[in-house]
């Protein structure tokens, strides 16, 4: 309490002269103050509110009420406000009584020279008492907050004394987690609890030194009645005074570890299933090809006339056998290719590919098919060699599929295999266009054009052979090599399929 501060002093005094005497005494001591005088209980109460004094100096011999009731009133209304009794006469017994009920000091009016000191002491005591109270309130609030968090935390929490390792507090979540009651937990040691085993002693020293946490992602604990619980374990040690406390947080991860294990198991199953599927593919490929060997082989030897001459009808029928056999083989190959692409087993090797050469190869291999239908098969390419780093196998497969389709669905006119190489948006683009003058595709059919197993056609084309997988495989291959396959078609006029190659590896 500083002297320079203006101290509001409330005098409970019926004698104005005495009041002035008191004021004089304080003034003489250099105390900066203002004062108000009251002499009834009501005016005391009013002044406590309105004047808001820092100290009350109270006479004992008031006609309206005495010091004891004044003290009670002050204590009741303003706990902590210091009251110093200043009175003409006071017996020891009474003085003790007044101190007991809340007065902080008393002195006699004939010894007023002690007043300033008494006032200063009372003010200082009140001040430190207030600070103490604030501190205690803060501690209490903090304790309450901690307690609330401790009690309501979803993690199980236990607190132990580091010196003995004995648990002295657990929260409700821990009780729920392990099934042991609070009483069963408290008094046990961390070791008994399975939190510290021989191999894994809690690094207390390190925790204390660094203020760090000790964490184990998964720790298996035994709960009550053989219950097994997986917890994520976190421990922290802190020192209060000389005592070291360990707090352990246990988060229930039983469900998580269960799902993790289930997930691992599922992955193993999927891997096994994927392997089984690969083996099935390989074995199906083998099993389907074996009988075709005899069908195509003997049809071939007969058509080669190795066993002898054939009648025209025999030859015609044998060719149908061979044609159907080859068709069956291409279906098997398509299915296997699709299965391989879909399971990600298709391995494509990238290399510099001379595009025109691939187009000419495809044209050569399919020209008998085109010629048989009286169609022209043309290859159009720029004068300079176009070399793109891509998969020759995929490019060949896509162009073959597109060209075979074009021939299949065209009855008159021509099929064009066109290679284009141009610069668009500063980047070199290479495209292969396969166009026909065939039946075209209706707009409503174009959307499902690239879906597997969806053959598009009307009465005129239903007799055509195919799995309906050709375009689906082609688009998947195009995507696999980083390119794109699109279609533009006009019903009854013709179709153009455009394969855009990725320009990777080009300058």
């Amino acid at each position, binding site marked *: 309490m500083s002297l320079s501060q203006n101290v509001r002093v409330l005098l409970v005094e019926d004698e104005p002269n005495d009041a002035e005497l008191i004021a004089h005494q304080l003034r003489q001591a250099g105390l900066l103050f203002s004062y108000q005088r009251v002499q009834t209980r009501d005016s005391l109460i009013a002044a406590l509110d309105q004047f808001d004094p820092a100290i009350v100096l109270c006479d004992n011999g008031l006609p309206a009420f005495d010091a004891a009731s004044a003290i009670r009133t002050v204590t009741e209304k303003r706990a902590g406000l210091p009251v110093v009794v200043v009175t003409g006469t006071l017996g020891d017994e009474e003085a003790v009584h007044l101190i007991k009920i809340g007065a902080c000091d008393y002195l006699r009016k004939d010894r007023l020279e002690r007043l300033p000191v008494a006032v200063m002491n009372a003010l200082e005591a009140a001040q430190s008492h207030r600070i103490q109270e604030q501190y205690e309130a803060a501690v209490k609030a903090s304790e309450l907050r901690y307690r609330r968090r401790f009690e309501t935390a979803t993690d199980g929490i236990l607190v132990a004394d580091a010196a003995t390792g004995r648990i002295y507090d657990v929260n409700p979540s821990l009780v729920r987690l392990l099934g042991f009651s609070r009483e069963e937990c408290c008094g046990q040691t961390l070791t008994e609890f399975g939190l510290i085993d021989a191999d894994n002693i809690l690094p207390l020293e390190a925790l204390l030194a660094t203020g760090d946490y000790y964490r184990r992602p998964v720790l298996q604990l035994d709960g009550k009645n053989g219950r097994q619980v997986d917890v994520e374990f976190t421990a922290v040690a802190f020192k209060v005074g000389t005592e070291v406390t360990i707090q352990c947080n246990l988060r229930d991860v039983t469900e998580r570890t269960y799902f993790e294990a289930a997930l691992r198991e599922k992955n193993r199953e999927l891997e096994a299933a994927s392997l089984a599927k690969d083996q099935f593919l390989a074995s199906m490929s083998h099993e389907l090809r074996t009988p075709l*060997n005899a069908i195509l082989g003997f049809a071939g030897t007969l058509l080669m006339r190795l066993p002898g001459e054939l009648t025209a009808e025999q030859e015609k029928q044998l060719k149908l056998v061979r044609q159907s056999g080859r068709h069956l083989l291409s279906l098997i190959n398509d299915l296997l290719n699709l299965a391989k692409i879909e399971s990600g087993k298709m391995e494509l090797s990238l290399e510099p590919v001379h595009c025109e050469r691939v187009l000419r190869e495809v044209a050569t291999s399919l020209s008998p098919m085109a010629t048989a239908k009286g169609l022209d098969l043309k290859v159009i390419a720029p004068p300079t060699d176009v070399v793109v780093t891509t998969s020759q196998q995929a490019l060949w497969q896509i162009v073959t599929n597109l060209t075979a389709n074009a021939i299949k669905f065209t009855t008159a006119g021509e099929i064009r295999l066109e290679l284009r190489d141009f610069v668009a948006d500063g980047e070199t683009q290479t495209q292969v266009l396969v166009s026909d003058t065939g039946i075209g595709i209706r707009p409503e059919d174009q959307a499902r054009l690239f879906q597997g197993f969806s053959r598009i056609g009307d009465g005129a084309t239903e007799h055509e052979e195919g799995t309906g997988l050709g375009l689906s495989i082609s688009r998947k291959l195009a995507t696999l090599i980083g390119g794109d396959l699109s279609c533009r078609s006009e019903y009854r006029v013709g179709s153009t399929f455009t394969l855009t190659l990725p320009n990777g590896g080009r300058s």
Partner: protein
Amino acid sequence: MTQSILLIDDNEINLELMSYLLGAFGYEVRTACDGPAGLAAAERDPPDLILCDVVMPGMDGYTVARMLAAHSCLADVPVVAVTALAMVDDRDKVFESGFDGYITKPIDPETFPLEIASFLKTRA
């Protein structure tokens, strides 16, 4: 002099097809319906070329090829796999096992004799 070819395949129809076709092209053809029988036949009278199936019950073609390669009198006889296995890794495994060639089934009877001739020629 007639060149001799030993066919090893567990499928009788396949054996019949290949022996008929190769016989028609003037080769002397012998057949064996499994690996051990094929090895015994080859040992008894070493042929100029061996065509061997890969997937067979009991001893598979890979084993047959390895045993032939390890055999002092037969190591020089070319062995060609004729197989319905057509996966990429199958092909790698075939060559790793010591086969000198690889023909997939179904065979094309028009080109098959030419392929066979090329294996015999490279040897001569």
